């Protein structure tokens, strides 16, 4: 790829921009935000909303052009609303037309607060209405859902049950066709279409059919208005109260980038976070709905021989078991962070010869879907591999007789394959670190509650060898709980009389850098919100040499 920039003139000022991109993207590079509805960087260009009009110098003088369809060329001269009255007026006109037939639902609309229509109206609208009630509105809707309201007005489709996950308001739809394009181009399954024409056109599935796709909730993200809303989030929270934490999907090794949105100690929704190199703007419905199980069935205390105990009592009991043991099997987890696994390896070293590390998972690996999932549910498998942890659970079961103590952290062996895990029940002391009351906790002699993925900071390395960062949301149900790495530090101090030298996650991350060239020099700042591709080991070695 060439780094050479080209020069364009925006509102009389010259700017350097990437050649060949859409003007709307180039304007972003010039720090000019262009209001738009139908344009989406991860979908084809439809050019139908006409909101992003700019004035471009052409062979026949300046003409109004849509900036989403136009490609930048060297020497292009563009006027935006900042300098052109014509652009301002055109955009005001488009806004007026969009609102002419839009229902006045804002107070009861779930999209309010994150509605592009509202935002663009504030930005570019005509603030003095000239719409007269008597002129009336044309409400959009399929024949099947039309109704007459209490004022005798012919109305369109409201609260249409579009499918298991989504509710559709046809009246609010501005026909930008983003959802239609998403289903056709990304999901590869055309289930939505805009039927009819003119101002009576409406969004629909085939009459009687339901929208059903593993990614269909993505249409609610890209819907610029309150037409498509996810049933899971309807009327749950006003969005302006939500606080956002950037994180990574913990259920798949592609590591889709997400935002955890929380308020008052609770996660209310997970939203996709755009990363062109990973998941674009999409996440799987299952990923999106992970938050629903987050606060349920939590293990916030310790369990010793099945009885609830304080966390410190749990640590004591676990440490005693480890100390007493002749041979300890430590099981790492691809569901936990790089730092957690580093701590496990370090604990094994502290315990010396009597400890042996195992790794892997019995969860089945599926095919990738080419959208936002690789199919491997072990999200951080690569971290374990880079730390030198083998995929050898079957060895552990074969040799279970050799061990008298088992430490499992964040890896629900019994939940994944109870029959295989049964062999491990011969091990006398079974210590399980887990965030939930899962099947492994049920089989544990000592179980200790730890923080879950949404409550910790740490690194996941995805299947493309990309380091990505999870951040901690303040939603932990019991503040005294440790993140797994810290739990292991504590255990090490008690069981090996040698606490691990980690004051924070960053120390564990640095320690991991000592284990593999690719991990050397990683820092949270370097990874940042969009992650960083790991340098292949050979190159890294060369560079340091």
């Amino acid at each position, binding site marked *: 790829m060439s780094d050479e920039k080209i020069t364009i003139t925006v509102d009389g000022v010259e700017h350097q921009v990437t050649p060949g991109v859409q003007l709307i993207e180039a304007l972003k590079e010039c720090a000019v935000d262009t209001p738009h509805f139908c344009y989406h960087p991860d979908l084809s*260009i*439809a*050019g*139908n*909303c*006409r*909101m992003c*009009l700019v004035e471009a110098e052409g062979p026949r003088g300046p*003409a*109004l052009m849509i900036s989403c*369809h136009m490609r930048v060329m060297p020497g292009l001269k563009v006027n935006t609303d900042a300098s052109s009255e014509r652009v301002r*007026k*055109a955009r*005001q*006109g*488009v806004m*007026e*037309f*969009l*609102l*002419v*037939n*839009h229902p*006045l639902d*804002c107070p009861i609309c779930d999209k309010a607060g994150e509605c592009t229509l509202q935002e663009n*109206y504030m930005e570019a609208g005509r*603030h*003095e*209405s*000239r*719409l*007269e*009630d*008597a*002129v*009336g509105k*044309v409400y959009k809707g399929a024949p099947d859902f039309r109704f007459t309201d209490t004022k005798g007005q012919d109305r369109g489709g409201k609260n249409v049950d579009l499918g298991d996950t989504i509710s559709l308001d046809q009246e609010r739809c*501005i*026909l930008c066709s983003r959802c239609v394009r998403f289903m056709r181009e990304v999901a590869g399954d055309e289930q939505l279409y*805009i039927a*009819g*024409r*003119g*101002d*009576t*056109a409406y969004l629909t599935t085939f009459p009687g059919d339901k929208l059903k796709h593993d990614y269909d909730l993505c249409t609610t993200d890209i819907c610029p208005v309150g037409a498509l809303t996810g049933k899971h989030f309807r009327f749950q929270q006003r969005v302006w109260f939500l606080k956002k934490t950037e994180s990574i999907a913990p259920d798949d090794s592609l590591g889709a980038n997400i935002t955890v949105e929380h308020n008052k100690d609770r996660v209310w929704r997970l939203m996709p976070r755009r990363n062109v190199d990973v998941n674009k703007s999409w996440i799987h419905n299952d990923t999106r709905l992970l938050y629903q199980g987050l606060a349920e069935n939590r293990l916030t205390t310790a369990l010793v021989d099945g009885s609830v105990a304080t966390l410190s009592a749990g640590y004591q009991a676990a440490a005693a078991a480890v100390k007493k043991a002749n041979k300890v099997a430590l099981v790492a987890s691809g569901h936990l962070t790089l730092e957690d696994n580093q701590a496990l390896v370090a604990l094994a070293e502290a315990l010396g010869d009597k400890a042996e590390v195992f790794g892997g998972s019995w969860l089945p690996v599926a095919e990738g879907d080419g959208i936002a999932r690789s199919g491997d549910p072990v999200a951080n498998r690569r971290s374990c591999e880079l730390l030198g942890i083998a995929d050898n659970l079957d060895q552990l079961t074969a040799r279970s007789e050799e061990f008298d103590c088992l430490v499992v952290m964040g890896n629900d062996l019994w939940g994944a394959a109870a029959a295989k895990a049964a062999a491990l029940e011969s091990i006398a002391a079974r210590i399980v670190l887990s965030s939930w009351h899962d099947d492994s906790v049920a089989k544990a002699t000592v179980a200790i509650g730890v923080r879950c993925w949404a409550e910790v900071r740490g690194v996941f390395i995805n299947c493309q060898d990309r380091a990505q960062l999870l951040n901690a949301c303040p939603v932990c149900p019991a503040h005294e709980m440790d993140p797994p790495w810290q739990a292991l530090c504590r255990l090490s101090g008690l069981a090996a009389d040698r606490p691990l030298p980690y004051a924070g996650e960053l120390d564990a991350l640095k320690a991991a850098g000592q284990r593999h060239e690719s991990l050397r020099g990683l820092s949270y700042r370097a990874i940042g919100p969009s992650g960083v591709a790991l340098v292949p080991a050979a190159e890294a070695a060369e560079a340091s040499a």
Partner: protein
Amino acid sequence: MTAACTVLSDLFAVENGHTLEVARKHGAYETVGPMLFDKSQFELIEWVLDSGLRGRGGAGFPTGLKWRTVPRKMGKPVYLVINADEGEPGTFKDRFCMEKDPHKLIEGMIIAGFALNVRTAYIYVRGEMLPQIRRLNEALKECYAAGLLGENIQGSRYSLDIYVHRGAGAYICGEETALINSLEGYKGQPRLKPPFPTVSGAFANPTCVNNVETIMALPWILKNGPQAYRQWGTERSPGTKLFSISGDIGKPGVYEIPLGMPMLEFFDLAGGVDGELLGCIPGGSSAPVLNKEECETCTMDYEALGALKSMLGSGAVMPFNTTRDPVRILEPIAHFYAHESCGQCTPCREGTGYADRVFQRIVAGEGRAGDVDMFFDLAANFEWTTICPLATADAWAIKSFVSKFREHFDKYIDASSRKADERELADLRPGGFM
């Protein structure tokens, strides 16, 4: 019809001129032989360019220039699609042509097809014209039987199949990219350009869309040479054109006249204006209306009408007399565009209907002071802000009628019971949400 001017209309008055037998007696398909097959494609394209033939569907783009942009040699199929989706209010020449002389169209298609590497051609006929579709299919069958279509036409190495595609009711399919979408089994919504259809059209292959009348001029041009075609018309608008004339005129119908004829002379040819002329729509409802003074000075060609900020369009001429109310003429036009908006671009989808509703209130005697200006401003807001020119055509009609016949519109406001109504919403809630 002047006798000297029968490039297109020579068979219109001939009984059974639509049959192959009669058409051949009058010289049909004489070009389909060495006259065509010994020419190179490039020569044909340059001939058409030299003849100055311009697209007769409305835009008036030089046909030869369009043909030059077709990548003939890329190994992809090239399609020729005939635009017979005639629906511009006031226009009825293409229906007439297909009915009276389908063989001239087919002969022209063979010429165009040969020039552009076309193996498969389609005639997209609007759905309402089933009788004309039958006639075309009949003519096509005659041609296949006579070896004029199909593989190795007349023993040459050229093969062409022509299929009729029936539309289903959408004015916008007359726009070439919408027509291609409709041919491909999509909604007839115009596509973003570029890419232009001559490069990537139907099924992403190069596609040349030409109007019926344009193609029908080809046999004559091939027989007589490009310079002969220039004996009629003006330097930049050479040749002859079919005009459909209706409205307040003595003998409405289809006339072939040389381009550049003074408008009043044409009116006389068509039986003279009924009553006293008030104005005229010169090129279908999309063409801005002309007032009487403009009619008196203008000639019927692309440049003269362009200079008046109107257009020749499809050649649909509709004069109206002083007993008519221009407001009532605009009413069906504004309604037409609102009805025919494809629903793709915001300004057209919502704007044409909104403007129509505002206009309906004016016409119904419920307009407020300032409503005419608002109507005008709404039209200005959907002019040139959309993918295709449909909304622009509506805006032109509205703007030209309002500006040229303003007093007629104001009468409605003066008579309105609500003319003094305040703009209550804006006053009560400055900055309020709509």
